[in-house]
């Protein structure tokens, strides 16, 4: 019995027909691939894209310069310099994230005690030089502004 069944399957190219069934049935459905970049995906708010630094509603920066994000970052790509500001307050001098090293794990965001750092839906980060991929405080704040009022990773 087995032998006959095998013989028939062989001469009718059964396996191929079986495979083509999927091909032909898919031909009739709507495509799932997108014509990126003409067609753009919908990114969920919890997406871990480019970091952003946030400002308080009054415009002042939220970051208190604690450096915990840098401590937590598994690749050590966050570099912070701080100093004593007016009134002996802690002041953020420079803040840099070297995106080429970043894993987008979001640990930095988890670490931030004041939710000053978040991640956004930005993902098109390619650039022509390594230097440009070191995101400074200004760039990150600008990204934060872009997302002001929008839902992000944190919310």
């Amino acid at each position, binding site marked *: 019995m087995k032998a006959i069944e095998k013989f028939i399957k062989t001469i009718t190219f059964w396996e191929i027909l079986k495979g083509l069934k999927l091909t032909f049935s898919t031909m009739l459905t709507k495509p799932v691939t997108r014509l990126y970049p003409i067609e753009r995906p919908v990114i969920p708010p919890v997406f871990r894209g480019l970091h952003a630094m946030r400002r308080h509603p009054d415009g002042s920066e939220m970051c*208190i*310069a*604690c*450096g*915990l994000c*840098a*401590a937590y970052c598994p690749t050590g790509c966050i570099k*912070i*310099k*701080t*100093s*004593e*500001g007016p009134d*002996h*307050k*802690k*002041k953020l001098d420079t803040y840099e994230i070297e995106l080429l090293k970043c894993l987008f794990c979001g640990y930095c965001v988890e670490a931030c*005690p*004041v939710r000053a750092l978040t991640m956004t839906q930005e993902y098109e980060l390619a650039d022509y030089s390594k230097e440009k991929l070191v995101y400074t405080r200004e760039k990150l704040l600008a990204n934060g502004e872009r997302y002001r009022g929008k839902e992000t990773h944190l919310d």
Partner: protein
Amino acid sequence: MINIKINGIPLSLEKPTNIIEAAAKVGVHVPHFCYHKELSIYAGCRICMVEVKGKPKLLPACATAVSDGMEIITESEKIAKSRRGVLELQLTHHPLDCPVCDKGGECSLQDYVFRYGADRSRFIEKKREIPVNYENPLIERNMERCVSCKRCVRICAEVQGDWVLSDMNRGSRVTMESFCGSEEECVHCGHCLSNCPVGAIQSRLTKNQVRPWFVEREAETVCPYCGDGCTLYLQSRENTILRALSDETYTKGSNRGSLCVRGRFGYDFPNNPERLKTPLIKKNGSFVEASWDEAISLVAERFGRIKSSAGPDAIGAVIGGRNTNEEAYLLQKFMRAAVGTNNIDNMARMGHINALTALEDAFGLGGMTNQIKDIAQSGAVLLIGNDAAAENPITGLAVKRAVFKKGAKLIVADAGKNSMSKHAALRLTYKPGTHGRLIEAMVNVIFDEGLQDKAVEEKNKVLFGRINVAYAHNTPEKAQETTGVPAEDIRKAARSFASAPAASIVFGKGVTASVCGYEDSLALADLSLITGNVGRSGGGVNPMAGKAGEQGACDMGALPDRLPGYRKVASDEDRKRLGSLWKTEIPKTAGLTVMEMLVAAAEGRVQALYVVGSDPAFELPDRKRTADALSKTKFLVVQDVFMSDTAALADVILPAATFAEKEGTFTNSERRVQRIRPAMKVLAGARPDGEIISLISGKMGRPMDWEPSLVMDKISVSTPIYAGITYDLLESGGVQWPYYEEMKSGTAILHSQGYDDRRAAKGEEIAAKVAAARSVKDDIKEGYPFFADIAVSLYHSGTTTRKSKGPNLVVGGPFAALNPADAKGLGIGEGDTVKVRSRSGFLRLPAKLDAGVPQGIVHIPNHFLGAGCNVLTEVILDPVNKVPEARYWPVSIEPEGR
């Protein structure tokens, strides 16, 4: 033997100790706030509670001594509950602002809260609001974060001996404040901040700048300032020194966890933007930047030309106290082997050399006989001519420890201000320059009253006889006339010194930097000898080096009449031995001392000078004469890290590396050879001194290895006292020379097996030298009723501290401190300008009133550009070692109003 079990781990102990220390031995950490092994037990924080089998209640691990058969449990649910309770009580008030607290990441409270999960308190009370105290320029105190462990209070009192802090208020309102609300007594040692387990006391220099995870590199190294040679940790990030830390284990080096303000807060000069970054060549009177090739070729070529036209002796070199042993060795080798002259000297010529040669003549080996920590074992300490608390603060701590812990009688003998006076049982204030008579009178009293060590006398009858005769003329009554010290006080001092079971002598530039420095150092050696204190623990004769590299430079033979290891240039055998190692002939005639080189330079006999890491124009007496000689020098090469008075006169300036950028070793006063290690890369454009010297030497046809570890290998072959010392050996800590390979140990106390009195052998020669020393007369006092005490400030060292932020925040400029009675007599008030005038010049300085300054003295810290005390002084040399008189100088004081 005490056999105990800690968490089931068996442990046998020789000596009883508390549970915390016992647990640490088996690697178990018992949480604690108020316990610290250097301090008395307070047992106030209650976080250290542990279970002991058979005891119904938990016991404090810090205050419970282990006893045989004890079974201790350090972690259990019961213990955790108790600790959580303690933490909750702490958190009632604690602000928990860890994200902006500098202690975050290295804070005991944070760690314990994390460990026991007590992250919030059930006790709701209004949090304390206490303003942060910023009165101290270097240290901030944030009492909201204090856990009331009182470690700061205790360390300031028990270790530092300054009693600045105390606990104010009661109960939950307790805060640690300076005792009378004034920070005046604080010496900024930073013991309190290094000892605070939480973030309540912090350095203001690093405030908001450092996180433990910012540190990229940490180096265990040695403080570059004074001769105490403290172990220090430098942490850096991106080639910038972040901070200096002391040893947390309180075990290493001579300082064992302590530091003074210079070491702890004077670390940032390597990053000062004023560092010299490129070789400079003087062309038509102004400096032009040059490449290293150009500069080195020029130096080699000019040295070569001068050598062939005027002979090798027309070239001289001086090395300062900031350079490593290896660099001093290379420089003297360069001078002797490549140039072919013995004209090499170092800045120990300003005093320390007198002590070394005197001790060598008295005992056979020139060097501090005991070690710094050993001073703490003394029953009596004679501190003479050295303000240990300012000049050599860690030695000062050892002296204080002897006083506090051993009840030692401290005799402070000084002509000027001495901050150790407040701990003294007896303070002898002698007239400047008369310390020799004082010491002689003490020896006199000891013989007179039969207080000498009889057992030692038995063995050294002849020597004792000679000493007795030598000092017989100087009775206390006579000494009272010359020194101004009451005869009765001299007697008292002699008695307490001689009757102590072990008595040590600590002295410094007040004795050595004078025309009788050699002779008076010998007298101190005699005093120690007749009381049987030589070779005894807690005794000895201990000269203090002013700079980190001074002792080493002498050991390395950077001296005109000595080869490495104090071998003599005059000895054919020593020269041959070294010559065969170097495959060259060592020049036979002794070279010139730095003072003589300057005279020779002014006269044109010396045409080229190579000045490494020092600033003779600022440091040597008689500014005009020195500057004149330096500018007359045809070719002056200065190798340093900053522009200096001397560098400004140079023909070529070679930018060198600082201690934080290089490998090497320093030998401290107590003969301890210790490694320094780089915490950052060599500043772009600068080079380590060793490399520079070897480049010049190579260009002159004598290549030398400069890799510090290789140089040390050579040193251990050519310098007998350093035999067997290698970098591998020094890896785990310093070694005190002489090192004995057979026993694998250095020598903590010299002469414990007896000594070799060289004076007996060459009595005549030495007697003549001593006689010559006495004959130098002081006829410059006429019309100058005061003495300027040209002093070392606790806060400064010279070229490098000037460029460090910390020390300058406390003492940022020169001043003239006067006794209030003198000031009143002259109508001078605090802050008034005074003109301090001597025969040769004057200084205008703001006046300070200070009751610690004896009458007739004006105390001037000699560190500040534009206020160098060498405008006041002239050159008077001691006849033995050509050490210039440089500590006390007759001056007059004229008030100039505000």
